[in-house]
């Protein structure tokens, strides 16, 4: 993303979003994935995703399908950036959860 990572105030819902990404940091997830996995309401989830993306923790891209061919809209896929992975791992490590801590 090329944008310096910013501090993000950690709410419980934000932690749940980050936890979903930290399960497999290389995996791209759509909002629906996180919505179904974490049980977060869409009204909470999408502002968090946009804020995390704006802060440089997440990066997103469109799903590589042609909507006219697929007959459906494209998904927006999110994944952690390197800085987002580092910062979120630090946060979870500080909570003694220790998930996805980089070597």
């Amino acid at each position, binding site marked *: 993303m090329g*944008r310096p990572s*910013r*501090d*993000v*105030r950690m*709410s419980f819902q934000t932690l749940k979003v980050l936890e979903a990404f930290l399960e497999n940091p290389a995996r791209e997830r*759509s*909002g*629906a*994935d996180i*919505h*179904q996995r974490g049980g977060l*309401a*869409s*009204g*909470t*989830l*999408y*502002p968090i995703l*946009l*804020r995390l*993306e*704006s*802060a*440089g923790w997440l990066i997103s891209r469109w*799903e590589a399908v042609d*909507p006219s061919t697929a007959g*459906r*809209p*494209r*998904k*927006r896929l999110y994944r952690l950036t390197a800085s987002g992975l580092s910062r979120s791992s630090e946060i979870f490590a500080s909570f003694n959860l220790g998930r996805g801590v980089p070597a």
Partner: protein
Amino acid sequence: MNQRGLAPGEGVAVEDLPVRIVGYAARSAPAILIERLAEEWLADLREQSGLIARLRFAIGCVWAAGCIRHDHVTATTSAGNTSVRPDARSVMAARAYHGPPLYSRHSESSAQAASAMCDINVTPLIDVMLVLLATLIITLPAMTHAVKLNMLPEQATAQTQLPEVINLDIDFDGAVVWNGAAMHDPAQLDNYLQSAARKDPQPELHLRPDPHVKYDFVARVLAAAQRNQMANIGFADTPAFEE
């Protein structure tokens, strides 16, 4: 992408309501995010199973649009109006979680930011709730509609059973035969008639007089039947009299 599923002429079916709500939510987001959010939310809406889940998701998108719009306004304010049309990331990054939460009571230092926090447009939420209310009002009577049928009582079905029939033959000489058994005297006939009259339901008495019997004998049998409370009396095999 254009806003798929938001054609103005589309019918307002209950199944289409989540799509319309999502479209409405996306349109109420900041202008630079409308197309992105519309496509993203419509794609994610398809992942929801069931009308209730889709409606919940769609209503949540309305709320999300309000939050995103608020972030947008706050970020624009805190950016000091340095750019006329900032891109989405720069606008959102300007906020980047350094400020108070969305609906926090803690006011920011500037009066401008404080006014932005109070300027939450609840009109879309009210519109959505009214649409949902109208939909429920329209659909609930149809769901509870029932056709009342006046079913026949059980007694009516019981009446379809054939009643017991007593064939009472009167021979040409006045001899009376009760279901094939000859009656020796009028007293015996009275006893049979009394016992038959006490049955519930009372059997039918079919008189079958011989065409050559005197009416006097028939009248005596009729009188005995009436005297013993027989109610269902009729003449059978009457075509024989037409000869």
